């Protein structure tokens, strides 16, 4: 496997074309922050089908992918438009099988995190203290119980629930910056992105900016995703809209609040996809279409980190 440190820059179109295939298990991570929306839209544009989407918080981009007919199955721990309302397509599919049924696998947040940890660490299972007495194991055969080989505090046998690994065919995450080899640096809320990348067969990292090697190397602890775990790196400014990129642009709460009404009406939802996804050739057009007013509204000021000294041998 030569070339772990080679130049892996490509376009979002080419990254999705190369790495997301019909029937794949696709993980899209980013907890409220750095949601890979642009990548989700490109998957819609390219008409992928029968995907299993793995995402802790199934929110707007998942609702859009569902509405576009890309998704057969969803694995998640939260299905909602954050605190701003419901996901119309998702609820229709789960509650009424309209326009088509959706296979749904339900975990809690930490259950999902542990599935990524098990996947990243090539473990057959990962133990966690959740689920004891919950009804979730009764509807999710992935949640099972194991007896500890060590005695509990009372000397008796201790039981604990475990979850299985997830090994996505491809994980896609958004980050603030990376070098051309894919060493990716994230700050602010970093969620479970690194584990989701490590758990995957292939990984695409979409970034606000590709920076000079020297920028990344000036702060190696900031690299949460090392190049050897990355297959493609894509520069795509504002690729996380309507979510935010700490230090680059703020969350578009107006859009979040508007989504409940859009997605509650199948016709409006179809029109939205036609106008904003199918009607734009790439994310740069989507951003241009957003317009200067929205960009101004989401602009953020500076709050720079104090530098640390890595030192240099004299």
């Amino acid at each position, binding site marked *: 496997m030569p070339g772990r440190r080679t130049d892996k820059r490509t376009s979002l179109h080419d990254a999705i074309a190369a790495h997301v295939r019909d029937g794949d298990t696709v993980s899209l991570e980013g*907890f*409220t*922050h750095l949601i890979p929306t642009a990548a989700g839209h490109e998957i819609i544009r390219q008409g992928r089908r029968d995907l299993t989407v793995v995402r802790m*918080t199934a929110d707007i981009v998942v609702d859009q992918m569902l509405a576009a007919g890309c998704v057969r199955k969803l694995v*998640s*721990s*939260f*299905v*909602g438009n*954050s*605190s701003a309302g419901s996901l119309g397509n*998702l*609820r229709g599919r*789960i*509650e009424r099988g309209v326009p088509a049924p959706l296979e749904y696998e*339900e*975990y*809690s*947040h*930490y*259950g999902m*995190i542990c599935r990524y*940890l098990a996947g990243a660490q090539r473990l057959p299972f990962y133990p*966690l*203290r*959740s*689920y*004891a*007495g*919950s*009804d*979730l194991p009764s*509807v999710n055969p992935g949640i099972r*119980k194991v007896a500890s080989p060590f005695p*509990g*505090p*009372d000397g008796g046998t*201790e*039981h*604990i*629930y475990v979850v299985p690994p997830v090994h996505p065919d491809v994980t896609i995450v958004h980050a603030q910056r990376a070098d051309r080899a894919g060493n990716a640096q994230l*700050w*602010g*809320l*970093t*969620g*479970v992105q*690194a*584990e989701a990348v490590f758990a995957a067969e292939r990984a695409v990292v979409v970034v606000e900016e590709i920076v000079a090697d020297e920028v990344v190397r000036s702060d190696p602890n900031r690299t*949460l995703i090392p190049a050897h775990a990355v297959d493609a790196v894509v520069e795509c400014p504002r690729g996380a809209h309507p979510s*935010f990129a*700490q230090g680059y642009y*703020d*969350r578009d*709460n107006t859009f979040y609040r508007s989504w409940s009404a859009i997605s509650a009406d199948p016709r409006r939802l179809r029109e939205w996809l036609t106008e904003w996804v199918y009607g734009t050739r790439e994310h740069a057009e989507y951003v241009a279409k957003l317009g200067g007013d929205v960009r101004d509204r989401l602009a*953020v000021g500076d*709050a720079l980190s104090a530098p640390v000294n890595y030192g240099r041998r004299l």
Partner: protein
Amino acid sequence: MAPVTSSELVSVVAARELADTGTVFAGIGLPTLAASLAQHTVAPDLEVVYESGVCGAHPDGLPETIADAVLVTGAEAVLDMPTLFGSVLQGGHIDVGFLGAAQIDRWGNLNSSVIGDWHAPRVRLPGPGGATEVMAGADAVFVVMRRHDPRSFVDELDFCTSPGPDRALADGVRPAGRGVTRVITDLGVLSRDGVGQELTLTALRRGVSVERVRAATGWPLRVAADPATLADPTDAELATLRTAIDPERVYLR
């Protein structure tokens, strides 16, 4: 002062319950208001932890989500989620976790997944999020409900998303925390201390009768021998809530 709203009362009561608390795991909305008010009053050193990974936030403005950028800038620590959920929450560093739910039963077990049958739900709710973990990991859980009614306070849950310690024990697993210890509603406060105890009505909002709470509760509610009457919010508490914490009444609706 304008009359006290239910949201204000619930926030004030929850804040007072946070006296002597070190760390609180809070969601957005009333829990955030309660934690902020506690920092201004009974618990100045209280550390608020969000499931997004933020510890010790010092926000410039009122956050709109638990992952709001204003919670990150100037925070004392921002942890990745495996650390936050694994080491902080499951690891036992949270004294009080705040939760809401669509349904709660007499033992403090919670449903946030579905109304109806899970396989063909009448209403698909958002689901567990981190609630299952807050229940399993925090030493105590406070539930805040804006409206005390029999649709939420049910005899039997449609689905148990986040089980308390009694259900864990019945499942053969030793629980770490005490489960729900306080339920704070627009009518009063229900309390329990831990395993084996039912929620009991311990305090009433001024003007609310025991009978009214019983009628609003879907199971035969236990009532303390002499339930207290909640002290009205003080002018200082109200002023802090209204002026310093949520001047635009985003959550104080």
